[in-house]
């Protein structure tokens, strides 16, 4: 499957048919029911809810049109055959999610003689786009770009594994609710929820809003939050790629299966390689592919057997910092050797938490320490945390609600902050 890169942020989507086919043999009632069933196919696998509304009173998220030729969206239809339909990906624009069918096709339902185009099959495909899926090359996918004929009874049709994987990458999977099924009288018995195999995307995943990440890294502008064998990706726009985490080993190709936790990660500025740390070892990736074997942390100047809590590259000097407990090491990427005179006390970073879960630098150059459910911000180039630190991670980074006051845990101990001092600053510190 492929993803368009956009996703609905809400879980209840409204829809309405704004114009019906002028030449179809199908009644308006049948068309509405088929649309309802086509949406229910996606709802059944994602927990999304689709609600038909009267567009006179409310602007629906998904507006369905039957139109011919040029119909004011820059993608004119072309008469019978050729282009059958199209839909717009999720977004904030009024046309986002809208789904258009070429009214010059012969739309059919339940045709056994192979005549016409099966409206239900095309509608399921187009609603996949309206939810954020692109085209797929998987053999059984409804998202293949070419029309492949009727798909059978709308009441018993269910998505292929490829389609489910794509959908659940976007919206996760939650238990089916009564609203996920069509509210109209069914044409056939409603579909049974499929039995999911172990290790499928329905496997329980951690709650990103609980924090306590193992590692956080800025990789080419996206912030990756690692937790156990999962990770979330936050796009530069601030939007999560998916609320559901991706599996570590499905993404980082070649990462040994025994590695269940990434303790720290960073993108090497010199060559863009991505370095993942776990235990006393690290792995180097080019894009998503592993390069070579595991390497020991002693290469960064740490004692044999030592592990790291956090690693980050500081843009101010281009050096890489490796933190463990209350001390840190520094590595010179250009010289490809550890700087002498380390470890030193973490107290250089005033107000930072000891043994941070990880540290990363944002796209604006600010440095962020993460620990537990909080983060500490150091403005670009500064080693003194901002006065409003720490703050809860969830609301700022991961689209989580602001925690109630009775849920707030006290932030961990930090390095002391100086109020004022007669300081002597050494150039190399």
């Amino acid at each position, binding site marked *: 499957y492929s993803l368009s890169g956009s996703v609905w942020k809400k879980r209840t989507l409204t829809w309405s048919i704004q114009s019906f086919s002028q030449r179809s043999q199908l009644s308006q009632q049948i068309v509405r029911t088929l649309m309802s069933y086509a949406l229910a196919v996606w709802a059944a696998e994602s927990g999304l809810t689709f609600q038909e509304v009267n567009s006179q009173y409310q602007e629906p998220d998904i507006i369905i049109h039957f139109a011919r030729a040029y119909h004011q969206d820059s993608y004119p*239809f072309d008469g019978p055959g050729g282009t059958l339909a199209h839909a717009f990906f999720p977004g904030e624009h009024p046309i986002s999610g809208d789904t258009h069918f070429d009214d010059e096709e012969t739309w059919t339902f339940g045709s056994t003689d192979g005549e016409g185009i099966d409206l239900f099959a095309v509608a399921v495909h187009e609603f996949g786009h309206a939810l954020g899926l692109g085209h797929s090359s998987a053999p059984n996918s409804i998202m293949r770009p070419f029309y492949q004929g009727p798909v059978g009874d709308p009441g018993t049709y269910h998505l292929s594994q490829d389609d489910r994987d794509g959908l659940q990458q976007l919206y996760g999977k939650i238990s089916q609710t009564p609203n996920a099924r069509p509210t109209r009288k069914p044409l056939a018995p409603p579909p049974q929820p499929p039995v999911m195999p172990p290790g499928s995307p329905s496997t329980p995943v951690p709650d990103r809003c609980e924090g306590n990440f193992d590692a956080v890294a800025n990789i080419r502008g996206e912030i990756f939050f690692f937790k156990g064998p999962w990770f979330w990706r936050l796009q530069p726009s601030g939007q999560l790629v998916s609320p559901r985490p991706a599996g570590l080993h499905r993404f980082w190709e070649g990462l040994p299966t025994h590695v269940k936790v990434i303790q720290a990660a960073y993108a090497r500025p010199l060559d863009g390689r991505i370095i993942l740390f776990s235990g006393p070892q690290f792995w180097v990736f080019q894009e998503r592919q592993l390069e070579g074997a595991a390497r020991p942390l002693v290469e960064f100047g740490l004692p044999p057997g030592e592990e790291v809590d956090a690693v980050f590259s500081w843009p101010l000097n281009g050096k890489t910092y490796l933190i463990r407990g209350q001390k840190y090491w520094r590595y010179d990427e250009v010289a490809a050797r550890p700087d002498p005179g380390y470890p030193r006390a973490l107290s250089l970073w005033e107000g930072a938490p000891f043994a941070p879960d990880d540290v990363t630098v944002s796209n604006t150059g600010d440095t962020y320490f993460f620990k537990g459910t909080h983060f500490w911000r150091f403005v670009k180039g500064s080693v003194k945390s901002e006065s409003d630190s720490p703050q809860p991670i969830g609301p700022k980074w991961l689209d989580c609600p602001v925690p109630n006051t009775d849920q707030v845990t006290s932030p961990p101990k930090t390095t002391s902050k100086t109020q004022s001092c007669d300081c002597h600053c050494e150039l190399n510190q």
Partner: protein
Amino acid sequence: AENPRAQDVSMGVEWLTRYGYLPPADPVHAQMQSLKKLQDAIKVMQRFAGLPETGQMDPITIATMHKPRCSLPDILGAAGLVRRRRR
């Protein structure tokens, strides 16, 4: 295989560009697709269509390009069409 007709090649390149398999034409410079790029694009198209990946504009590939389909590009990004959301 028999060489495809010039019209078929022309139609095929236009089709591959429309659905994202080939980059859109540069409005400033005339450009020619390399044969390798064209063959790679045809192979990817054939994968989406469930055809043998020959990389050739063979009759079955040409016929598939005339089949009914969804009008969104198969390869997102290259065509740059679907991100426009103007009414």
